[in-house]
């Protein structure tokens, strides 16, 4: 069977104008004033001054994807992954270059897009199916399957606004999963629902890929990408910097992440939030040895976040991820305990102490979400990497490197006599 090309992109570029559209909605007045200014500066003879900054979200991206390939898009936040998916699903137009797309495209950029809270489950299935590109007859023939997959039979005629969030996500995913497109574009949708449903969704994605559909998949979870895709495209600042077998692309991404964590964090641009205060430095310290970024499992450690400005209502969320980018746990200061302290002497830093670090030996990374004034101020992935050395937990040796799982905790066994 001659492989056919599903997607071919040549020199694909997308620029966004910063300014107007990013500072909230434009008003007619702004634009009139802007227009007058432009005309004015031309009359005065200052010529064509650039008034707006342009952000190159995608810059000369070329690739070719054959029918039936499963490709993972990897990259930092803001590397251009979502922009690429939006371009391929025709939501936005490229500013340069072209892409030829052959086949029916189904895009899942967000589960439940177009679900209307006032409509019933049944009505939403039809509306959402149509939005995703299904024919009415097609939806009708798969209706029972969809409902069974989502497990919401009893609530079909209830408005979706009375659903629990889990239920509506399940129903939304079920509709999407039964779309059977030839090209499926998926963006992070698996990050929703409970673990069991995530597994079910993942299996369904695998099925779609195996059934011969072309899949382009964006996720921060590298393990998922590796499980689903054979090929990885690594994007950075809108450019393709690697297009290789998935393992290679993931490795390259991880090396990039580590290098970025070693750089001065203030030079990083892949951050989100209000940015009134920025994470300057983040490290984990073994409280016994005083070593930074190398800690021994089972011993007390503290994670220190240093930032630039002190704001009211500061909170911090630290997510610890394993080397494949799979999140292990989130430490959240907002889930406060009486043991927490607010110290006026602390200055521009936040500390999180862990009495006994329950991680097995290996390499880990920390993502940080710094909050202040009740807003997300600085969201930074891979703020630091650290190694856990083998240690003991509650007097018991830890599993070795390569053991299943990432964590270990204190335990006591009851056994028959030897």
């Amino acid at each position, binding site marked *: 069977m001659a492989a056919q090309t599903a997607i071919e992109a040549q020199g694909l570029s997308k620029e966004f104008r910063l300014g107007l559209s990013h500072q909230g909605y434009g008003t007619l007045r702004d634009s009139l004033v802007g227009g007058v200014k432009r005309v004015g500066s031309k009359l005065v003879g200052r010529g064509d001054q650039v008034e707006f900054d342009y952000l190159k979200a995608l810059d000369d991206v070329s690739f070719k994807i054959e029918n039936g390939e499963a490709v993972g898009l990897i990259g930092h936040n803001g590397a251009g992954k979502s922009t690429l998916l939006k371009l391929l699903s025709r939501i936005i137009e490229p500013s340069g270059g072209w892409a030829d797309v052959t086949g029916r495209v189904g895009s899942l950029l967000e589960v439940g897009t177009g679900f209307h809270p006032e409509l019933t489950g049944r009505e939403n299935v039809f*509306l959402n199916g149509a939005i995703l590109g299904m024919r009415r007859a097609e939806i009708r023939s798969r209706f029972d399957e969809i409902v069974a997959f989502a497990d919401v039979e009893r609530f079909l005629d209830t408005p979706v606004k009375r659903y629990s969030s889990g239920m509506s996500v399940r129903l939304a995913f079920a509709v999407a999963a039964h779309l059977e497109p030839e090209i499926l574009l998926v963006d992070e949708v698996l990050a929703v629902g409970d673990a069991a449903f995530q597994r079910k969704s993942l299996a369904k994605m695998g099925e779609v890929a195996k059934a011969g559909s072309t899949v382009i998949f964006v996720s921060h979870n590298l393990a998922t990408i590796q499980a689903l895709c054979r090929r990885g495209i690594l994007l950075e600042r809108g450019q393709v910097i690697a297009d290789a077998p998935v393992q290679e692309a993931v490795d390259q991404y991880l090396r990039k992440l580590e290098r970025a964590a070693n750089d001065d964090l203030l030079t990083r641009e892949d951050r989100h939030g209000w940015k009134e205060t920025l994470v300057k430095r983040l490290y984990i310290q073994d409280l016994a040895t005083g070593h930074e970024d190398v800690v021994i499992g089972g011993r007390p450690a503290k994670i220190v976040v240093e930032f630039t400005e002190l704001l009211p209502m500061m909170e911090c969320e630290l997510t610890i991820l394993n080397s494949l980018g799979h999140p292990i746990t989130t430490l959240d200061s907002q889930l406060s305990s009486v043991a927490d302290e607010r110290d006026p002497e602390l200055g521009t830093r936040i500390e999180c102490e862990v009495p006994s670090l329950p991680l097995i030996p290996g390499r880990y990374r920390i993502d940080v979400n710094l909050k202040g004034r009740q807003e997300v101020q600085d969201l930074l992935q891979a703020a630091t990497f650290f190694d856990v050395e083998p240690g003991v937990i509650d007097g018991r040796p830890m599993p070795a490197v390569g053991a299943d799982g990432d964590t270990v905790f204190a335990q006591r066994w009851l056994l028959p006599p030897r």
Partner: protein
Amino acid sequence: MPELTTTEKPVAAGAEVDYHDSREAVTVRLEKTRGFSRVLSPRELWLYRDLALQIALRDIVLRYRQTALGAAWAILQPVALMIVFALFFGRVAGVSSDGLPYALFALVALVPWSFFSSSLLLGSESLVLHTELVSKIYFPRIFMPMGVIAAGFVDLGISLVIMIAVVLIYGIVPGIGILMLPVLILMAAAAALGVAALLSAVNVRYRDVRYVVPFAVQMWLFITPIAYPSSLIGQPWRTLSAINPMVGVVEGFRWAVLNTSTVPWAQMGVSAVSAIALLLLGLAYFDRVERSFADVI
């Protein structure tokens, strides 16, 4: 595994072509477009026809869900306005109603007007109310204002029935002119879609529209001969005023339903041309800016 033959699938003549195949067969080139492209492409609209239907159904269902009075609102608005107009313009100010009972004179004009004004009010918000759809899914965006107009037809249908009933109660039997009603309704719909498409598109970029529309609709109400007959205006202005397409629609409605003696051919003609012009203008503008909706919404 069966071979994938996506591009050439023989289709027996006369057999119903499966929808998917019709979309599979093509390679879509995505690139920067200029000028007119999508909305006025009948092929694209046809491919997405089921979505158009679902959006219209959504708008119809949602219009009165969780309202106590439901579809009664369709007629309550024109009737309430009729009462106010009859009291203040008819009784107090003594505005002429061309010899017809004033309440009837106003009601027959208010029915198409309500359709038109609610189409503008809801249509201009149709895109910005569904930001998540516009920024996450591709589909011909014109379906959003179209859905509003489609839902408006349901309201219009209900109020037409009640209007005819009231007319009959007053002892007036519509003449042959009533056959013109569908044409007049189409005129109103064309004008409404044109203006709603334009406003909804501008609204994506400039939320000023939100404040302008209610005000503009009120002004429009008063420049349309609803509370007064257009016979108050001297020629040639009477005919020229029909550049406002609702002039022809309203006067046409009165003639068609109330069986008045003079047929407002000139006004209906001018309004028909102007309604079509508005429709084309609105669609053309919509089409030109549609490609940037997801960037700026």
